[in-house]
């Protein structure tokens, strides 16, 4: 099941040229661009691991692309996303967020129902991938601790 999260997620995966142009747009707005990765695709998992610090002082997208390439090379089978943070008063929040890398196999989510008192049903979703410990979830069994 293809994970859809953030911007552009119903489009085909962005090419490097398209990512460059999106990053350049964010930099031109004066936003700080950050790269984050995870192997826990749950939609409520908002704490992805940061790949370095957010890049506050760049003017050209090439600098971000270098970090993106390094992150994708280090975590080829994890989810990688790009964030653009707007620090201006009144926003102070993330203005852009989109996936730029995903594992080859995405097993999808399981819907769990738990019956409570009075036959009330509680629902929860759980990724099939998170059944395994972090670092071994997407065929990366040899890659402990990444």
């Amino acid at each position, binding site marked *: 099941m293809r994970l859809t999260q953030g911007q552009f997620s119903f489009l085909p995966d962005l090419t490097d040229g398209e990512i460059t142009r999106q990053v350049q747009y964010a930099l031109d707005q004066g936003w700080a661009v950050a790269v984050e990765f995870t192997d826990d695709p749950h939609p409520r998992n908002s704490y992805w691991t940061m790949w370095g610090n957010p*890049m506050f*002082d*760049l*003017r*050209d*997208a*090439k*600098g*971000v692309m*270098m*970090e993106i390439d390094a992150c994708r090379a280090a975590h080829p089978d994890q989810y990688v996303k790009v964030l653009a943070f707007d620090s201006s008063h009144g926003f102070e929040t993330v203005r852009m967020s989109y996936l730029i890398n995903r594992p080859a196999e995405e097993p999808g989510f399981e819907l769990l129902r738990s019956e409570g008192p009075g036959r009330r049903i509680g629902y929860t979703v759980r990724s099939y991938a998170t059944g395994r410990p972090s670092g071994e979830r997407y065929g990366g069994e040899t890659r402990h601790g990444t």
Partner: protein
Amino acid sequence: MSEAADLLDPEARDRPPDNQLIDLDALYRESGICGMLAGMDRELVGLTPVKTRIREIAALLLVERARRSIGFKAEPPSLHMCFTGNPGTGKTSVARRMAGLLHGLGYIRRDHVVGVTRDDLVGQYIGHTAPKTKEVLKRAMGGVLFIDEAYYLYRPENERDYGQEAIEILLQVMEDNRDDLVVILAGYRDRMEVFFRSNPGMASRIAHHVDFPDYEADELLEIARLMTADMQYRLEPEAERAMADYILRRMAQPRFANARSIRNALDRARLRQANRLFEARGSAIGATDLLTIAEEDIRRSRVFTQ
């Protein structure tokens, strides 16, 4: 190329016809470098070899662009440069102009210069240098990286110095990201030579070595004129003669730093002018008094009493 060679060359078929006409002049006009080169001639005094080299580079890039426009192969040339010269000969000013020029010619994407020295590139402990250098390179991407006093990167007296690491990362990026970044090294001539002798990899990756000659006395006077006009002051004719005198005397003294010494001299002349006006504050002064630097403002310099 002969017919036979044409048949042997598989690319010859994809090549555009040889009889296409290109209007170089139109390309020249629309790139806007005409104005930039004229501005350079106007605002930079002397420096003939430097200007010649910049013109050559501009011509190369323009022809490159013309070739690309009709579909010829156009390898982007390597434009890393090294500026050598004594203090105050305009290395930094030219580097700043270079960014504008290369940007106008479409060689770099952004019109920015990131100026750094050893401290910004080299770390203080093991593992500190690489991230620090990469950080700077990331910031400079798309524009010009100007490394002032580049020879400090290499400290031969300390074999465990981290400068070597910074140099290696720099070399890698200079080679791989040629169309993203132009590196300009600057420094004094003799020390840069020592630096290149111990880093042959660096020397061979720099295509343009530009030497900044010292200024002549009359060029320095011209610079003084430009600077005073820039600061919205005016030199009286006598003051100008005094300035010419001053320049000759100052050039003979130690630690003469070309245009920088002139700037300092003018700053001190402004100080003395302000003092003179302040001391005579009983009478009203006009706008011309505020503008004018008098002869005595320059003559009272220490250079004349020594």
